[in-house]
């Protein structure tokens, strides 16, 4: 009997439940798809390095999944409470007929169970299908071969999804039961008679609040978007809070002002159904302010996460060719174990990196078709603080958080030009008593340019040098996938005469053509490197001074880059999607219940002869406004949020920002727009009268 009532309730309120069900299905399938990535990727042909990254990715994904399940859980509880409220009258009838609260709870429990099982099954079905598509995406992101791929059903992910969503449903049931136990029959019966009072806000107060909020937001934007380097970690949450508060106030004041402004435009107001439309909106906007704020902030997070993730991926992959022009690089340096300071490599019996290989009976140049060996110098009297000339004080007050004690890297112009010949990049010309500063890390470049613009004179090893340019030149020495060079001083050769180099680098290209040959050569190079590094390690274990070798290869860098890019893109996609869907659901639920509440009003409009076209347009505008308003503000937020993010994304490169923003817009248009369309069409069918 109970089962029958539950089942029929669901059938009866199918329209209400449709969006809830739909949401659950999406939630379940997204959850499954991302948790199934590990098993999906088993059939991709990837290197062991990439496998390692995929393992890292899956462990991060499962961590994020906990967070995601919290968001989804909140959403499900919200949606179910929302549906419960809609049915207060029905519950009142049950209670009035003498049904006990226990029984009512049992009915609800059965309903939740039915819907839960149904949505889990449907969601998993959809998820398994989607995850095959996801595999293609993963393969593409990791640039892997998919030829040995076959259909995968991840048992682990299925189990995980069932457990997580099972817990969520249990929470929903608990919430429902608590709600039922708190019911008072009188409240239930009167729940339909909601107060129709429309508080029109004082327009002057609205303007004041708006100005205040806009000012606050503007200030937060300015600090976050334009002066991000001046922000300490403590300040960031404060500005985020400020942004959230002003978002709320802006919605609050705009909602009040909107009606005042439009009501004063008589010709517009009394045209067609405009006055009805605006009253419909204004009657709800007061109560919608809170949820619009939440939605706006969630959209903001979604937009920023998505565009940042894509930007990192796209830029990193694009940077690879430009910033990694050689096959391998070996770095040799030493440090003092007690003080942590770098020490000169010449200290070890006057060896540079090539000589060091020789000492252990190896030829460093073996397997390389072309190579350059160069030295990097440090001067104890020449740290960051000493490099800004007259502007030092000004810079140090403006950017208090830089590590000014760091010693500058110094390279001779002939060493640098030999390397550039290998890299195929432009060589530099340097006059006597001149220096050039190379830097491609954007925010550091800004700082350094201030010093150079002031004509900073520097003293290196007793030589006084003038800047050859009034700004930093773009350039780097070490191969990488990112713009990491915070500053290298190129000086005339004679400056370092008789000085011991601090580090010794060896950079070269393999004597190999095809990718397979290169991989074989790389293996040999690594073998030699491992031997030499091991010998060096054991050479003098008790000494305070340690010397060590490091190796970077293009293959390693590109694998890590592609892997990291894929990892970030997938994580971003996961979080972004969940947030987007949540926004869509909250709005859709609110809008649809509004349509149901307004059914009578629309039939009234029809009775006095309003055109169907005008009624649809009115609904379209109402739905559109509630979807558009949070999106608009979220977009404005995002402009500054992304500006802020770009500072941190800088090391990954921000060249592909526009492309990422376009992709993000596409995704938002698809999902958020999809929710809008569904909501509008469902709303239209709700208010359509059956004749």
């Amino acid at each position: 009997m109970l089962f029958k009532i539950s089942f029929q309730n669901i059938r009866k309120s199918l329209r209400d439940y449709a969006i809830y069900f739909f949401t659950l299905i999406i939630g379940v399938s997204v959850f499954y798809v991302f948790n199934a990535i590990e098993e999906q990727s088993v059939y991709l042909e990837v290197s062991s390095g990439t496998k390692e990254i995929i393992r890292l990715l899956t462990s991060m994904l499962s961590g994020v999944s906990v967070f995601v399940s919290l968001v989804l859980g909140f959403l499900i509880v919200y949606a179910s409470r929302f549906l419960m409220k809609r049915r207060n009258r029905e519950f009142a009838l049950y209670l009035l007929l003498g049904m006990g609260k226990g029984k009512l709870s049992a009915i609800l429990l059965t309903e939740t169970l039915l819907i839960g099982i149904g949505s889990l099954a449907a969601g998993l079905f959809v998820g398994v299908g989607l995850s095959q598509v996801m595999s293609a995406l993963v393969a593409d992101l990791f640039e892997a071969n998919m030829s040995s791929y076959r259909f995968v059903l991840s048992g682990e992910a299925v189990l995980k999804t069932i457990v997580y969503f099972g817990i969520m449903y249990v929470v929903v049931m608990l919430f429902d039961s608590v709600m039922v136990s708190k019911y008072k029959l009188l409240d239930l019966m009167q729940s339909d008679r909601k107060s129709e009072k429309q508080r029109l806000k004082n327009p002057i107060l609205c303007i004041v609040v708006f100005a205040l909020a806009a000012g606050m937001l503007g200030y937060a934007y300015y600090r976050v978007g334009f002066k991000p380097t001046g922000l300490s970690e403590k300040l960031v949450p404060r500005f985020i809070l400020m942004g959230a508060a002003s978002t709320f106030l802006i919605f609050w004041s705009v909602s009040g002002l909107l009606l005042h402004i439009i009501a004063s435009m008589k010709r517009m107001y009394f045209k067609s159904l405009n006055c009805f439309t605006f009253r419909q909106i204004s009657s709800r906007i007061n109560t919608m302010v809170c949820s619009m704020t939440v939605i706006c902030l969630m959209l903001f997070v979604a937009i920023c996460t998505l565009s940042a993730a894509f930007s990192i991926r796209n830029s990193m992959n694009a940077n690879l060719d430009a910033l990694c022009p050689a096959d391998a690089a070996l770095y040799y340096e030493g440090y003092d174990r007690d003080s942590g300071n770098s020490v000169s490599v010449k200290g070890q019996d006057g060896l540079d990196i090539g000589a060091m290989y020789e000492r252990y009976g190896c030829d460093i140049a073996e397997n390389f078709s072309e190579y350059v060996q160069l030295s990097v110098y440090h001067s104890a009297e020449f740290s960051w603080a000493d490099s800004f000339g007259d502007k030092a004080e000004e810079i140090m007050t403006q950017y208090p958080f830089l590590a000014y004690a760091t010693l500058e890297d110094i390279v001779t112009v002939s060493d640098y030009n030999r390397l550039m010949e290998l890299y195929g990049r432009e060589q530099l010309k340097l006059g006597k008593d001149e220096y050039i500063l190379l830097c491609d890390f954007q925010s550091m470049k800004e700082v350094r340019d201030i010093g150079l613009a002031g004509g900073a004179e520097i003293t290196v090893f007793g030589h006084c040098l003038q800047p050859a340019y009034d700004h930093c030149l773009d350039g780097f020495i070490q191969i990488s996938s990112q713009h990491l060079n915070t500053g290298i001083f190129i000086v005339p050769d004679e400056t370092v005469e008789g000085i011991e180099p601090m580090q010794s680098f060896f950079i070269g290209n393999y004597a190999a053509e095809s990718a397979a040959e290169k991989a074989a050569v790389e293996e040999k190079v690594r073998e030699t490197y491992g031997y030499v590094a091991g010998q060096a390690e054991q050479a003098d274990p008790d000494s305070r001074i340690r010397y060590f070798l490091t190796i970077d290869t293009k293959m390693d860098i590109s694998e890590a880059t592609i892997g990291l890019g894929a990892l970030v893109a997938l994580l971003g996609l996961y979080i972004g999607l969940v947030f987007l869907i949540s926004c869509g659901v909250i709005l859709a639920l609110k809008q649809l219940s509004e349509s149901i509440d307004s059914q009578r009003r629309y039939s009234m409009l029809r009775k006095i002869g309003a055109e169907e076209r005008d009624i649809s347009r009115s609904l379209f505008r109402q739905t559109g406004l509630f979807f558009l308003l949070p999106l608009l503000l979220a977009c404005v937020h995002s402009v500054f949020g992304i500006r802020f993010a770009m500072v941190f994304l800088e090391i990954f490169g921000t060249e592909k920002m526009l492309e990422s923003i376009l992709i993000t817009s596409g995704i938002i248009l698809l999902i958020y727009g999809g929710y809008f369309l569904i909501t509008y069409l469902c709303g239209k069918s709700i208010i359509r009268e059956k004749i």
Partner: protein
Amino acid sequence: MELLRIQQIEKYYGNRSSLTKAIDDISFTVDEKEFVAIMGASGSGKTTLLNCISTIDRVTAGHIWLEDTDITTLKSRELNRFRREKLGFIFQDFNLLDTLTAYENISLALSIQKLPAKKIEEEVRTVARQLDVEDVLSKYPYQMSGGQKQRVASARAIVTNPRLILADEPTGALDSRSAKLLLERFNYLNREQGATIMMVTHDSFTASYASRVLFIKDGRVFDEIGRGADSRKQFFNKIISVVTLLGGDVSDAL
């Protein structure tokens, strides 16, 4: 002059196994500037009749002519236009839009006819004066009394100068004093403004304000009496006697 002609209409509900004849062959005419009341017990088909005339419902058979238009043949798009331009509605539960002020409720009927805003203001003020609702124009429905609401609803119905005003139990939700006030306004509109009104009611007192009363029973016209030169009191007594004859719950409602 004849304004409305109902020609042998029928309205059936249900399917072949259980057929309900809500209207079973009704014919009558309404002249211009007439005030007709239709009486009947609940379930007699009077509301169905009104719904058919107001194009909210469709007849199963027969024709309804308003001036030169056979409204049973209109398509749904033409129906909206027809309702908008030719008819005015007054409902038992007022059916004002609760989110709009009285002024906006009245003006809505004009703005969906795409009248310019300036003209709207003029027209709304005029009908508000006629129906004595000028002082509640800026109020919302929840701030008004039942009588005021019904007069605002009536103002909305007549502001478009409809050919025919249809009222469905207009006094049903009103106390007797408000009902009287409203009906006097109806009389004023009918006599002074020349409005044609067709009103459905089960209340003999309400019906006695009309110039003619049609009685409906089981989907058929049972009787018809005109007021002629009678006073309202005499007419009321005549109606009572027919109602007694009619039996059923109309007499119970007295």
